[in-house]
Each structure stands twice: as structure tokens, then as C-alpha cells.
């Protein structure tokens, strides 16, 4: 084996002397290299072949899709205006409160889940919280909380806050784990307490990312609030769901356009905020 590597190295050195050089391949053995590539291609082809498509059903649905798309050409913001405004306000409230609550709760969990600043038992508990929060998709959590708290925005808010904890705490913990440890040691060496070290050495290093992520999460939470409304957790999603089940596609179109506009706005402002915090 090393004999082989030796001769191939000799060959590469000879070639390099003559000015010929190629980057080293990712996988050494050409048999493996080609075997894996062929295997992947075959699997992808077979996988596509195994999906069977009911073309009759697609043709039938296409008619409805055309209806829906033509409704987009003439969205109706007016006839259900009151419902839309109410749903929107509910969604925005839900988004904001859940983000604030989620981020506030995520900070201690994130600190605890960073192996370099927390003792092992705390670390394990916090990692477990993160794992639970991240295992379940928002819809599943929403269904659970709708069962527990009834229909409406309260269930939605708790769902989103819960999902925010896992998301923010995980990313915060990772950020803390690879911060510049020399700065932390320098502050500790002055005789600072644990909390002072957090405030003077850790916070300055992670704050920009924490703010950036919070704004990003605000944007995610707004989008999620539209989705979980469909399973009964209130907000604009509920309004959208109602309009769809009444076949009022022009109203649905109006709602979707509003959602798109708000998401774009969030996107735009969050990139601004992130640049500002650097």
C-alpha cells in the first residue's frame, strides 16, 4: 500500500519536473472513484423511474391551477379586507412576541449548551432541550399546542417561541464554542466573575451574530406563522386557509401577495441590520 503510494508519488514528482501537475483526487483509488460515481448515477435514474405519475389526475388538477393562476392576475384585496387585516395583525403580533420570547429563552439555553463555558451536566440538559425543540417540525408542534391550548394565536405563539429556542440556542452555542478564547482568558485574568466574563468577553464577540440571527428568525417566524395557521394556530394562515376552502382564489392570491411582500421586506431589512452590526 505505502509501496504503491511511493511509486505514484515518484511518478507525480517526475511529471511535475516536466511541468505537468494535476490536483490530487478526492478519492485515491480510481476503482472506488469510478465505482461510486456510476453507483450514484444508477441510483438516481432508478429513483426517478420509481416515482409513478398519474397523468390523468395531473391534467384534471391543471385546470384548477389555471383558475388559481388567473386569480393571481386579479387579486382581491377588498371584499375580505377586514379578515385579511385581522389575520395579518394577528400574525405580526404572533411573530414578534414569539421571536422576543424565544430569543430571550434561547440565550440561557445557548450559554448552557456551549461546551467551553458550561459544566457537563448543564451542557447535557441544554443540548437535550435543543434536540427536542429541533426534532419536531413547526406543524407537528403546532398541532400539539392547538390540542393543548385550543385554536388561535396563543398556540401559534407558543409553537413559534418553542421552535425559536432550538434554532437560536443551537447557533448561539456553536458561535460561543468557536469564539476567540484568548479574549475570554484575558478578561478572566483580570479577576472578573463568570457573569462579568460573559458580559465583557463573550457578549461582544457573539452579539452581531445574535442580532443577525434574531432578525433572520423574525423573518422565518413570519413565514411559519402563515403555515401553522393552516392547522388552526391563528394568524394570516387561518385566513388563507378559509379563503382556499371557500374557493375564493382571488382573496387567497391577495393574501399570498401580501405575505410575499412582507417576507421581501424582512429579507431586505435583515441584511441591512446584519451589515450594521458588524
Amino acid at each position: 500500500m505505502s509501496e504503491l503510494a511511493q511509486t505514484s508519488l515518484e511518478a507525480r514528482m517526475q511529471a511535475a519536473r516536466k511541468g505537468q501537475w494535476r490536483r490530487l483526487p478526492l478519492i485515491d483509488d480510481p476503482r472506488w472513484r469510478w465505482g461510486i460515481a456510476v453507483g450514484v448515477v444508477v441510483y438516481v435514474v432508478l429513483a426517478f423511474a420509481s416515482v409513478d405519475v398519474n397523468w390523468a389526475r395531473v391534467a384534471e388538477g391543471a385546470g384548477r391551477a389555471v383558475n388559481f393562476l388567473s386569480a393571481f392576475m386579479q387579486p382581491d384585496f377588498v371584499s375580505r379586507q377586514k379578515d385579511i387585516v385581522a389575520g395579518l395583525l394577528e400574525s405580526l403580533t404572533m411573530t414578534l412576541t414569539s421571536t422576543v420570547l424565544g430569543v430571550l429563552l434561547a440565550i440561557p439555553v445557548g450559554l448552557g449548551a456551549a461546551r467551553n463555558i458550561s459544566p457537563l451536566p448543564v451542557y447535557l440538559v441544554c443540548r437535550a432541550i435543543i434536540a427536542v425543540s429541533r426534532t419536531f417540525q413547526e406543524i407537528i408542534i403546532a398541532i400539539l399546542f392547538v390540542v393543548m391550548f385550543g385554536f388561535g394565536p396563543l398556540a401559534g405563539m407558543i409553537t413559534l417561541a418553542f421552535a425559536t429556542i432550538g434554532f437560536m440556542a443551537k447557533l448561539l452555542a456553536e458561535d460561543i464554542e468557536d469564539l476567540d478564547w484568548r479574549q475570554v482568558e484575558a478578561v478572566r485574568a483580570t479577576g472578573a466573575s463568570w457573569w462579568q466574563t460573559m458580559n465583557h468577553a463573550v457578549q461582544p464577540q457573539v452579539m452581531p451574530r445574535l442580532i443577525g440571527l434574531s432578525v433572520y428568525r423574525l423573518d422565518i417566524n413570519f413565514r411559519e406563522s402563515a403555515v401553522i395557521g393552516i392547522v388552526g394556530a391563528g394568524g394570516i394562515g387561518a385566513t388563507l386557509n378559509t379563503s382556499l376552502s371557500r374557493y375564493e382564489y382571488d382573496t387567497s392570491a391577495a393574501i399570498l401577495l401580501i405575505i410575499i411582500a412582507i417576507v421581501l421586506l424582512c429579507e431586505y431589512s435583515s441584511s441591512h441590520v446584519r451589515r450594521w452590526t458588524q
Partner: protein
Amino acid sequence: MLTLSGVTKRYPTGDRALTDIELTLPKGQVMALIGPSGAGKSTLIRCVNRLVEPTQGSIRLEETEITRLSGNALRQARRSMGMIFQEYALVDRLTVMENVLSGRLGYVGFWRSFLRRYPQDAVTEAFRLLERVGLPHAIDKRADALSGGQRQRVGIARALLQSPKLLLVDEPTASLDPKTSRQIMRLIRELCAERGLAAIINIHDVTLAQQFADRIVGLRAGEIVFDGLPSELTSEILTTIYGEEDWDTTPEPMDDDVSDDSISHPPYAREVPGLAAGGAR
């Protein structure tokens, strides 16, 4: 003032960084700690302020046994030892003034430091120190906007704001150019004299060590192999500290010494068996 006895450090990885160190530092003495990389210089000064936990032995600062402290008592001991770092270790996103004032953290409560409401005398002293190190105009600059030499000055001001009795200095000049290095060493030296501080300075540069220290301690593989005056440092002693090397700067032709073990290469081997040696690896 500072006494280390029987100090041993073994890292969890199994590296034995210090073996049975005996060292006494009188008040006001500036001691340079020299030795090759990996000799244990950083480990030694980090044991003193317990950034690293010594495995064995006792470290006494005046009357306090440092190795047994924890919690508040450890904070109090740490604030009487100022530390200066090779990579400056300023908090990049804080301003120069915040960095200097963080030297006061061991004296103020959490809320005061959180709200940056430091006592007036601390602020006065911080500004006076910034003037002393020549950076009064930089108070509101962010630390990462300064040059290397300026950052190290801020680092020095931070350490001094602790009102320390002892300075622990870890390769203060290793990231600086030769001129700035000398300025920084001179500054540290002067400040120690002004305030009667003792200092342990880890340093690579033997010439700087000889020029600015009262005493030189040589460390090799975790053991003290030299302890004496700068003037006593001869080529033979440098060889015991750093290993075989030609200490005069003029290169001399070497006779081929094949029997020499492979660890210490002859410094100026003339015939490099290039490809053959590379192929053997």
C-alpha cells in the same frame, strides 16, 4: 514575594509541561523566562494566575497560597496579578477605554460593569494610564482599529489598572517589529520601576531579555536549567537551554558529523541530500 515550589503540570493529553519547578521572585524584580517553544514558559505563568491548574506543588503570592483558592478569593488573587499577552488579547469589539477599564472588573460588582458605570477614580486612573502609554486620543476607538504596538499598549494599560503587585507577561513582543518590540519592553521596564512591580516576562528574544531584565531563568523541557544574571548568559548556557546551535552569527563550515543523533541537526549542513532524503520519508 512570589514563591513556586515543586510545581508540576501534566496536561490531560499526557504532555508533561513543567516538572518540579522551584522559583522565588523578590519584590520589584524583573525576571525574563527564556527557552525554546514548548519549554513550558506559558504554562508556568498561567499556573501562577490559575488560567492553568497546576497538577502538583505550591504557589504563594505574599501570604496567599494560590493553588487552593476558588471563587471570590481567586478573583481577588487574580486582580493583584496583571497579565499581558502575545496576541494582545484585547476584546476586539469593545472600545479602547472599555478594554482598559476591564482591568477593574475584579474590583466592581456585576451591575456596575454591565452598565459601564465605573467609579470616578477608576476612570481617572484609566485615562492617566492611557496618557502614560501614549494613547489618550484613542479612548473611543474600537480595539481592532489599532496597530499591533498600540494594542499592546492598551493591553499594558489594562493590566496596570488592576493595581497589580506582579506582572505576568507572555511573549509581549513576538508579534511586533524589532523597533516596536524594544519600545514595548522599555515601557514595561519603566512602569515596573515606577510602581515597584515584580514581573515575569516570557520572551523568545535573548538579546531583548539580556537588555531589559534583572535576572534570567532558562527553561528547557519543563525544567529550570539556568538561573542567573543577564551577564552570565554564555554560549554554552544558551546551548543547554536551546540545544545545539551556532550562537555566533557568522556561519562556519561544519564537519560532517554522522554519529550525531538525528534530533539536533548540524546547523549548517553543506551537502543537503535533497531528493534522497525526501524519498526516505
